[in-house]
């Protein structure tokens, strides 16, 4: 009897559960329109122009080839990211969802607006937008960027963004900061946030440089069908874009910033023995940077030691390296990186008045209380700090080298 009573109560509770919770927010998987990229442009007055890049699942179908396009782009003015979902449904038949969202693309024009940060906080309000996504800054309007961007080999547009960001990031050409960092860095008010910089507009003729990476997106002279370039980074201070770093500077930033992971970077240096040729190297970071800070003096001092491991891959001078020459080469590379780093740091101190190297995180540990750190005012103190950078290059292997012919004998 008692058991039955228990059972009845239990069943009652279960049925209540059905009413209280349930499938009210369920939408069938095939009744949604999947937005792969959201573009945000400056609109009139306080409005923004939002662009949706909506992928077409039809392509996945095996039987019966479809003649529908792979994706659809729509652009319309709106007040914010969230209500835009509904507005879009006046054009798009299915329910708009951000579940598959890969990137948020913002035009440089809007990013430089002081009001920009207000729109960005919409991202935190929508639960479908994951904060491990990338924010891309484009030189032109996002609308133009999306329509002009026509990847030839990746018909599935979400794959295109996924792959190009992944690989450009591994090459160190764009920074690996996610949306989440935008908020955390802006809120801590002590550092600079970097965001990948991209464009479909090429500078006519490109720009000549000695190395291969001292370029910003659009400056690389590439001929062919693909016209989109992901290169360099946009610099954000206090949630607002203030400038750009080119590919080389981005790589150096990654080298200095411990919170960013550095992959294997292929790059070239001038040959100390024959100035007209360059040496190809593979750079890796095997150990952590050593950052020492001294805030006791009148001018705060930061000493950074950057260990770099370098493999020499190819030398056009066809020089044979003995131990002495290796030592010379090492000093030469150290010197070259040092110069570049000092230039970069100088630029951040003078032009940006902030650092994107994540040193604020390290510095925070040197203070007893958070209040102390805030009083120290890292952002404003940084431009006056003395930063000493020392690069320690370890020359690794030369790889497997086939015996090079003696040029004088070949050309006799």
């Amino acid at each position: 009897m008692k058991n039955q009573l228990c059972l009845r109560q239990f069943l009652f509770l279960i049925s209540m559960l059905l009413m209280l919770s349930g499938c009210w927010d369920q939408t069938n998987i095939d009744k949604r329109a999947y937005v792969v990229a959201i573009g945000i442009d400056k609109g009139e007055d306080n409005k923004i122009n939002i662009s949706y890049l909506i992928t077409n699942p039809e392509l996945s179908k095996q039987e019966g080839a479809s003649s529908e396009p792979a994706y659809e782009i729509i652009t319309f003015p709106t007040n914010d990211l969230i209500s835009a979902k509904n507005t879009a449904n006046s054009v798009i038949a299915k329910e708009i969802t951000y579940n598959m969202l890969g990137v948020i693309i913002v035009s440089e024009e809007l990013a430089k607006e002081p009001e920009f940060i207000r729109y960005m906080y919409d991202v935190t309000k929508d639960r479908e937008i994951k904060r491990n996504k990338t924010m891309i800054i484009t030189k032109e309007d996002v609308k133009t960027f999306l329509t002009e961007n026509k990847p030839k080999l990746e018909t599935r547009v979400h794959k295109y963004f996924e792959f190009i960001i992944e690989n450009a990031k591994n090459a160190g050409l764009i920074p690996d900061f996610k949306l989440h960092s935008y908020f955390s860095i802006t809120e801590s008010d002590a550092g600079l946030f970097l965001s990948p910089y991209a464009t479909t507009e090429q500078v006519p003729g490109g720009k000549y440089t000695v190395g291969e990476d001292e370029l910003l997106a659009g400056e690389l002279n590439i001929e062919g069908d693909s016209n989109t370039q992901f290169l360099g980074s946009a610099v954000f201070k206090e949630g607002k874009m203030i400038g750009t770093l080119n590919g080389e500077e981005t790589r150096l930033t990654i080298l200095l910033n411990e919170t960013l992971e550095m992959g294997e970077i292929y790059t070239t240096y001038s040959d100390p023995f024959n100035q007209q040729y360059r040496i190809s190297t593979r750079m890796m970071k095997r150990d952590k940077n050593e950052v020492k800070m001294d805030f006791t003096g009148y001018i705060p001092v930061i000493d950074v030691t950057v260990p770099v491991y370098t493999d020499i891959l190819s030398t056009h001078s066809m020089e044979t390296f003995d131990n002495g020459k290796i030592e010379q080469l090492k000093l030469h590379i150290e010197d070259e990186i040092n110069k570049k780093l000092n230039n970069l740091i100088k630029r951040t101190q003078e032009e940006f008045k902030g650092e994107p190297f994540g040193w604020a995180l390290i510095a925070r540990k040197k203070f007893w209380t958070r209040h102390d750190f805030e009083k120290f005012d890292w952002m404003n103190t940084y431009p006056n700090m003395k930063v000493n950078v020392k690069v320690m290059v370890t020359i690794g292997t030369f790889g497997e080298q086939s015996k090079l012919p003696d040029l004088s004998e070949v050309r006799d």
Partner: protein
Amino acid sequence: MEKMRVKQFFNKLIKEEHPPFEKAAKEDDLLKKKQIDSSLAKNMEIFKEIYYVPNNCDVNIRDIEIGGTKKMAAVLSISSISNIKIIEELIIRPLLSNDNESKVIEKLLSQQVRKAQVIEDILKEINNGNTALFVDGEPNAYIINTSNFQGRSVEKAENEVVVKGPKESFNEQAITNISLIRKKIRDENLIVESTTISKRAKNELYLLYIKDIANEELLTTIRNKINSLDVDSIQNLSVLEQYIEDNIYSLFPTILYTERPDRAGEFLEDGFIVLIMDNSPDALILPATFWSFFHNAEDHYLRFLFGNFIRILRLLALFITLFISAIYIAITNYHVEMIPPDLLLAISSTREIVPFPPLVEILMLEIAFELIREGGLRVPKPIGPTIGIVGALILGQAAVQANLVSPLVVIIVALGGLSSFAIGDTNLNYTIRLMRFPFLISAGVFGLYGLTALFTIGLFYMTSIKSFGVPYLAPMTPNDSTAKDTIFRRLLKNELYRPGYLKPKDIEKKAGE
């Protein structure tokens, strides 16, 4: 008030429709309790009446005159269940050809002879295929073992197939089955108790245990349970199982049913109790835990790593069967962000042209799969091969082409269905297959949350079940350090103890240490 009246009305109705049942056996019972007479003619009259001779055609009565003593005698047997040759050569011929007047009957026959007086006992012996010899002037009957029931020989196990290990299985004769077990355990402590468990059909049940291992209390519980049965007939163990199990309505089986003598032997040696009956090509093992259903004979026959490999596979199969369609429903309806983009698009594009919501789609296919399975099982052998082809063709190919279901759902249902075959035990197999449906529904209503909630409730329930006093998930919970043979088996040399949850008299498996 109203209720009472309605009840009374129905009671009346029932009473009117069914006059008191005739207790047909009552008068006979009285007669059968009597002892037999010393007059042969009188005895024969009684037995002829009981056996309804001569209408009952396979009951044989041979009247003979014993040589030497010149006494009249009758040999009574049922020809269909006794060995006619033995009766002829070892009973009738020695009696006829005797010429010694002083020899007693026991000495005349080369077979072992028992005496019986009560009619009931004699009937029981005859019904078991033995032969009764009545001699004029003697108030008892001589019983000679001649029983010869027809049945299969020992064949290969069909349901619990192993690749490595013994292949023979139980058949329908209890004596053969006991012999198969005794072949494995040559131990004087292996006891075979026999009891009659039904009133009319007089079905014999054999209770097997090892005297110095099996727990006395457990034995008493089982004996009491068996003796308290009050039914006319229990044909075989499959029926008996339902009479003696603890949780009749439960989805989970609590008595293990095996057709392999090696498994029965293994369990006996661990202190379990085995039930064997005529007409059952199997044995019941009790008490049973969840793990005994999950395990397979081959787990211990294969080498350590291989044995554990198939255990992992079986566990995987179990979870796939239970969850795969439910997870599909939950994820595609509620947790779309969990699916990798390419799969998401693939599912979305194939689902676009399917007219039903995913839950209906999956349920349709699951039910169709179960139908094919049941149909395939019952189909007469000559038609068998066709059903496979038709089923696979219609469901797989045509349903997709007709846009009734999406191809991914076919894969999911087929995978779940095939995985269920990896769970060898018939009972557990049904449990898992049935449980899929509640999981499907809960996933369709609450998503992954519902799935986990139902799974948790299921686990709660499983810990509450007991089989003859043994917790269902022992030795995992309550934790028992003696026998750790649960998901994975241990090295044989490390299996030192018998399962402690049975409270065996001898817990150590190694003798003499």
